[in-house]
């Protein structure tokens, strides 16, 4: 028995394979903490925003029935942009989590897949918009950040997670009307740029690898993003 999370993933949408069921038996046999993961696809089999949210709720409930999950790791993702930080996927995540928080005791997390890469303002703002949404809608865990959509080798760093955490701290306790205004301001600032999202830099390019320290360039980019978030209505 450990105090780590042990992952099992459902398949899109409302599907599973028997290997996963055997893995659950193994975890339960060890009394492990079970993290059931699934990322519903907006624009996929379910369709639009409300339909995908319905499937998200069903998937989350299934994590309790089928997987005996200790917690469910969500992550509504946009079929075209491969991102969790679009207006549509944030709305799915916000409504699903708030509803589950209101009507169940299931604990959930959400995954972060911004379009832009590390050392760019857009990447940090994308992470911030989701952190505001997740923190205010009652998520227990924020999990990320897989910058550059999580598909380019070595394009993630600790700085994106710092932004996720600082924004969560700033958001906790905000009233929901203010939250919605802030999210709208942040998303409006980057949602026209998905097709041309800045690629950003690899870890080796924006950190001193030997000392594991971000470069001055990245610290300045971070400071700029933080100033913008203050203009958008966040108080750090």
């Amino acid at each position, binding site marked *: 028995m450990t*105090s*780590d*999370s042990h992952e099992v993933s459902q*398949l899109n949408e*409302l599907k*599973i*394979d*028997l290997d996963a*069921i055997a893995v659950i*038996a193994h975890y339960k046999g060890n009394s492990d*903490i079970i993290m059931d993961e699934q990322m519903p696809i907006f624009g996929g089999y379910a*369709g*639009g*925003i409300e*339909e995908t*949210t319905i*499937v998200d*709720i*069903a998937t989350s*409930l*299934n994590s*309790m*029935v*089928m997987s*005996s*999950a200790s917690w469910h790791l969500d992550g509504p993702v946009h079929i075209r942009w491969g991102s969790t930080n679009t207006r549509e996927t944030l*709305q799915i995540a*916000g409504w*699903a989590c*708030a*509803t589950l928080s*209101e*009507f169940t005791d*299931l*604990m959930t997390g959400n*995954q972060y897949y911004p379009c832009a890469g590390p050392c760019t303002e857009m990447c940090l703002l994308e992470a911030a918009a989701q952190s505001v*949404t997740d*923190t205010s809608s009652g*998520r227990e*865990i924020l*999990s*990320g*950040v*897989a910058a550059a959509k*999580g598909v*380019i*080798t070595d394009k*993630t*760093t600790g700085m994106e*997670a*710092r932004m*996720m*955490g600082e924004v969560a701290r700033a958001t*906790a306790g*905000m009233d929901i009307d203010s939250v*919605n205004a802030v*999210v*709208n301001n942040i998303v409006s600032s980057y949602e026209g740029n998905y097709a041309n999202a800045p690629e950003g830099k690899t*870890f080796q390019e924006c950190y001193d690898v030997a000392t*594991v320290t971000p470069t001055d360039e990245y610290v300045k980019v971070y400071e700029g993003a933080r100033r913008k978030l203050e203009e958008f209505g966040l108080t750090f």
Partner: protein
Amino acid sequence: MTFTKSVTCFDFYDRAQKGEKCTQDDWDLMTIPMKAMELKQKYNLDFGTETVPTDKDQMERLFKAGFDMLLDCGIYCTDTKRIVKYTEDEIWDAINNPMPAFQLGTGRDSVQMKKREVGDKRKPIVQGGPTGSPISEDMFMPIHMSYALEKEVDTIVNGVMMTVRGKPPIPGSPYEILAAKSETRLIRNAASMAGRPGMAV
């Protein structure tokens, strides 16, 4: 209807051998979209412009729609091509008996996983890491260390090592096992070198 016993993964496996047959295409392209659309209309769902909802009446309808989606459709098993169904009481049994608060990590690096509410004043747990992103073998430890060095980060979520001893971790090969075990050990080392050996993964 009162259920016989709580559903487990063993019941799921047994039902996956005997449930209704269905092709995966029918499930993906007919069952899921048609039922989701039907429930959206039945429960009159329209989120408008709010990202985080304030309309509790609509949230209750959304919960019922999600519950009905699971109850009416069940879960499709891709190996047996059969549908596993639950009863209403079986689903409620699981909802009513979640795992209570628990600890992630050990010692001074541990955090408590506790239920949060909408608008909660407590900051959520920050699970920092590449979240499944591809990571080169050389950079695996320093990249994970960059998360462990951030005080805002409470636990680590791993990236995927692209090679192990210079070879790709092909699924089903011994290299896959070596890569999985090496990832965990290197993350533990990264957390330890950051002065936080008890961080949960």
